[in-house]
């Protein structure tokens, strides 16, 4: 129960770094939800595929890491946009439950495909000594990665906010998320904007997967399920549709998990349940999330 300052700082750093990983994936959920009002169930599995791509690029094809990472991001973007085109675009006018089922179908398909192609056995993610090196700062031992991950997340957040707020593409995205049909009338090519949105979300998932792989060096077909669900919850906590909210939700969730388990060791087995309990609480207290706007239901 008792925590001294050093262990507390260590857990805090760990929580922030887990939280920033959640934040990276949560952005993908929140952007897609903002535009399509759809939970992209497959997002966690896109993340998983990206981890496999990184594994193959580095451990199997022995590419230099910068080439491999760029390739991973590129291929994942194509995968995300491809999924949108194949599974969501044909259902644009269908009832929402059909699209949701389609999303579940894609998620299930990716998991099974990964099991089939890469076998269900977990694979070891290549080690990056520069990242996993342990630093000693005032008696607190911290991996380099733990410091790098939040920095990468914050940097990407600023780039993303710049794209959304100050570029033409971002303006179009905001227009589509405000009103889908009017945006179309105003001459915005919706399909293209949606494809870009999926691409951006997937690229963040890819970066998240690479960092995740360095932190937890194991790749398996079901590795995306739990992070996927949790990051959606993070997006809901922050207010779905809101990018800053997603990052905030990611941090809150990461910190809550790490600190609660650190403080009450009897909760260790229930670590994965914390997110869902947090979700139910937030939906009861503030259904629109911390930064979400209230919207009235139209008749």
């Amino acid at each position, binding site marked *: 129960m008792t925590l001294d300052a050093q262990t507390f700082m260590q857990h805090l750093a760990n929580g922030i770094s887990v939280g920033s990983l959640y934040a990276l994936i949560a952005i993908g959920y929140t952007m897609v939800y903002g535009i399509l009002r759809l939970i992209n169930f497959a997002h966690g599995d896109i993340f998983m595929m990206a981890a496999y791509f990184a594994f193959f690029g580095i451990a199997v094809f022995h590419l230099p890491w910068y080439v491999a990472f760029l390739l991973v991001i590129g291929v994942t973007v194509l995968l995300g946009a491809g999924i949108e085109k194949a599974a969501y675009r044909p259902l644009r006018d269908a009832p929402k439950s059909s699209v949701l089922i*389609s999303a579940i179908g*894609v998620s299930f*398909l990716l998991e099974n495909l990964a099991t*089939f192609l890469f076998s269900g056995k977990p694979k070891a993610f290549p080690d990056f000594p520069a990242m996993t090196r342990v630093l000693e700062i005032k008696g607190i031992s911290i991996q380099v990665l733990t410091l790098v991950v939040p920095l990468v997340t914050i940097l990407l957040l600023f780039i993303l906010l710049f794209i959304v707020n100050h570029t033409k593409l971002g303006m179009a995205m905001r227009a589509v998320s405000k009103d889908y049909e009017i945006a179309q009338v105003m001459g915005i090519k919706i399909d293209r904007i949606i494809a870009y949105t999926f691409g951006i979300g997937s690229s963040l998932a890819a970066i998240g997967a690479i960092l995740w792989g360095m932190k937890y060096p194991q790749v398996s077909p079901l590795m995306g399920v739990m992070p996927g*669900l949790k990051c959606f919850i993070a997006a*809901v906590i922050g207010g779905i549709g809101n990018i800053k909210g997603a990052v905030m939700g990611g941090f809150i969730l990461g910190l809550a998990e790490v600190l609660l388990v650190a403080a009450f060791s009897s909760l260790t087995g229930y670590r994965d349940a914390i997110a869902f309990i947090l979700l139910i609480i937030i*939906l009861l207290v503030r259904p629109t999330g911390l930064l979400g706007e209230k919207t009235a239901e139209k008749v």
Partner: protein
Amino acid sequence: MKKRVKTKTQLPLKNRWLLNIGAIVFLIAFIFIANQFLDSYIRRILNLCAIYTILGLSMNLINGFTGLFSLGQAGFMAIGAYAVAIFTVPLEARATIFYLEPMHPAISHIRLPFVVALLLGGLLAALAAFLIGAPVLRLRGDYLAIATLGFSEIIRIVFTNIQNITNGALGIKNIPTISNLWWTWGIALIVISSMVLLIRSSYGRAFKAIREDEIAAEAMGIGLFKHKVIAFMISAFMAGIGGGLFAALLGTVDPKQFYFTLTYNFLLIIVLGGMGSISGTIMSAFIVTIGLEWLRFLDEPLSIAGISIPLFRPGLRMVVFSLLLMGVVLFYRKGLMGQTELSWERIIGFFKKFGKKEGSQVGGDLSE
């Protein structure tokens, strides 16, 4: 939603009764013969068909008829399955099963008859649905999907952790099994008929009204929350019963069986059968269960003329299964039945049409 206008004339009441009775007699005879003469593998599949019918109906009640997208079926199943497992395992076997940590003294000496344990499982699942329903049923659409999915995961996580009640990750073995078809089929028939009665009652009409338009339904004086909770509880009750039968069929339960992907099986069943069709659900429960068994050949290595085809290896079955789900959603959105039901008129109409086609091939119109 537009309903097809019925132009076909209805059969006389007497004929319909005769057909119904005939069908029931045929079914009973079939179960009797199947019980007597078919081998255990086929009996097992038929049992599974009945259980999947119950679970498909449970899922369809909440998703198809009430229009609430719930993904919590695996969790409710787990509650029912564990109730049966915990309360029907023979007392003398308990010490060897719970060898890591002895069973909690409050329940270690209670053994219930199968039916009581089954009902208890259903009631516990309904109770859980009531508790979880109060907060989550206020949510709309996809939030509900995530919250129920999360709930089913919480159940699984809790069951993995309460070692002295559920035996944790080790699971419970030696559950007395049922191997004949009467249990599963009898209960499936009870569930099907209560489902038909429910949907035809004022509650059923209220559920459908909520599905079509919540705001309009509320304006018509339907208590949204009350009806949603009722639908959710009945659905959970049925899922609990299905789960209990599942446990008794397999003879063993462990938390991994109730991973939330199990819910996707029932999702495929209701999507294929038609969201909001009882008869469609029954048909597709058969198609999916038998299909999944039949597709097992995909997981076996296959060699044609001595050359082994590398495509056939474990995992292919599930790939095909998920492709099927995708295919149905993308190209066959209404499923087999849409929101309509199978009726004798429809069956007869189908055969008449079929007969006509056959007849016109030989050159004469035989039916008229």
